[in-house]
């Protein structure tokens, strides 16, 4: 693992003093390698390692730690600060009903997350309404309706239109009728490079005017995390993201790319297929995973 590799690099240095330019270069190379194998994007890894170098250069090697451990400690701290620094709760404000827009690539876990969030908000005393705005995938509406029944949250669905903006408008009036105070809008998966669908997303966002706009990303996402996050962040004006399938064994380097590129916090972690499998995001846990 990374610690052992760094021990190898710094053997013979323990107790003697500063990390030097030479052993630092080799140590940083190992760190870069570890980040890349954990799926951190190339550019993000470079920038991150540069910051670690700055922190580490001239750092007094703690008497109780070996240089390898010291470097891992710096890396770990830097990761946790980056991943958790901006942490903030869900923002549900503005004229009721508040809106949460759920977006992302195909298959990332949006529909499942929407139901999880509904259950979570219900337990916090809110009255959510799930809104089925995926009008494209076969049985998408059915999927949300089944989940809605499971979490005992109403689902607003329309089978008479292919326009998600219409659905949002209908959902808003329906929410006022049944006194729901938060709309959770599930949308169709889309490629960030699909101009037509990204324009549709913007239209849905404008119609909903959500105070919370979440990007849902699969924890096993590789190098494209940057391109995906960047485009969705800009076009969707995201306020935060959700990292799903963290119950798997993916290292999750996409988390670093995600936060680095969007500057927005990861608010939730999907940790299973069940509607209860939703966690608040723990930066220290994902830092440990990324470092392997």
């Amino acid at each position: 693992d990374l610690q052992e590799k760094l021990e190898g690099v710094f053997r013979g240095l323990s107790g003697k003093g500063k990390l030097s330019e030479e052993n630092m270069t080799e140590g940083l190379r190992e760190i870069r390698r570890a980040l890349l194998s954990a799926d951190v994007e190339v550019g993000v890894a470079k920038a991150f390692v540069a910051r670690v170098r700055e922190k580490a250069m001239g750092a007094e090697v703690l008497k109780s730690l070996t240089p390898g451990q010291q470097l891992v400690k710096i890396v770990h701290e830097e990761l946790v600060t980056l991943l958790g620094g901006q942490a903030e709760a869900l923002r549900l404000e503005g004229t009721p009903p508040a809106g949460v827009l759920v977006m992302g690539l195909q298959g990332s876990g949006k529909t499942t997350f929407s139901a999880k969030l509904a259950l979570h908000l219900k337990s916090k005393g809110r009255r959510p309404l799930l809104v089925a705005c995926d009008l494209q995938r076969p049985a998408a509406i059915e999927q949300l309706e089944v989940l809605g029944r499971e979490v005992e949250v109403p689902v607003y669905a329309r089978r008479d239109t292919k326009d998600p903006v219409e659905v949002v408008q209908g959902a808003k009036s329906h929410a006022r009728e049944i006194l729901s105070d938060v709309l959770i809008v599930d949308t169709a998966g889309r490629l960030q490079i699909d101009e037509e669908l990204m324009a549709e997303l913007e239209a849905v966002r404008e119609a909903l005017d959500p105070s919370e706009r979440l990007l849902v990303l699969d924890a096993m996402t590789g190098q494209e995390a940057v391109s995906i996050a960047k485009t969705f962040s800009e076009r969707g004006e995201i306020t935060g993201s959700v990292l799903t399938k963290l119950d798997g064994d993916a290292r999750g380097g996409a988390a670093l790319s995600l936060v680095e590129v969007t500057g927005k916090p990861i608010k939730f972690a999907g940790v299973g297929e069940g509607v209860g499998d939703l966690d608040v995001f723990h930066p220290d846990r994902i830092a440990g995973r990324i470092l392997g």
Partner: protein
Amino acid sequence: LRREVYLTDEFLEEVEEILIAADVGVDASVELAESLRRRLKQEKAQADLAEVTRVLREDVAAMLGGEEAEPELGGPPHVILMVGVNGVGKTTSIAKLARFHKDRGRKVLLAAADTFRAAAVEQLVSWADRVGVDVVRQGMGSDPAAVAFDALAAARARGHDVVIVDTAGRLQNKEGLMRELEKIARVCGRQVDGAPHETILCLDANTGQNGITQAKEFSAVVPIDAILLSKLDGTAKGGVVVAIARSLQLPVRYVGTGEGVDDFALFSPREFAEGLFQ
């Protein structure tokens, strides 16, 4: 106009970076860059850029299996088992495969053996309707192996040429779910000799290095015959299949290029390798 490059460490690092950025992974990228250095430095310390990219493309393509090879059918019925982690495109790809075989005059039957996820059966039934093929299904929560068994029995009785079994998405670190998959495959073999004849691992092109673990762990419970690389219409290059080919020798046979039933093709290693360097 020849662009000459010196095979310096800097240049080789650049090559590595292009490969890493395509999700080929550190180890495989370093190895490819090394092999490039060995192959070209034998003749000269410099080469023209076109030659360098050609060598790289050849090396990558050589790792990835045959060019657009049509699958050989087993049975009848030829039994296809579709497996993979959650959300990668298994169900949608089954619709595409059904269409592929139907177009070749084969009688296709689908088995809705994802009896777990909300509206999974409805999703497959909807696709079966669209493509115009039959589907065997049971109630939600029924034993997936039982659905597969019934479907294979029906296929034999009704003379289907191809059966495609859909399974629930499952993460490879979930032991119980992996055992369930093993059982589904075993039960297929009891109903039809040699089944499943084609176990396809569906892999999302956006997947990073975890794709290697997926291939490794799924292979440990059911022999994987081929990979279907989905969502290649996105920006992801799907380079993890190179790392998989290098360590597990699993071929890629099919690609998914969109959400429609025709967004499907046989895998071309040559085209794929070219895509890596674009």
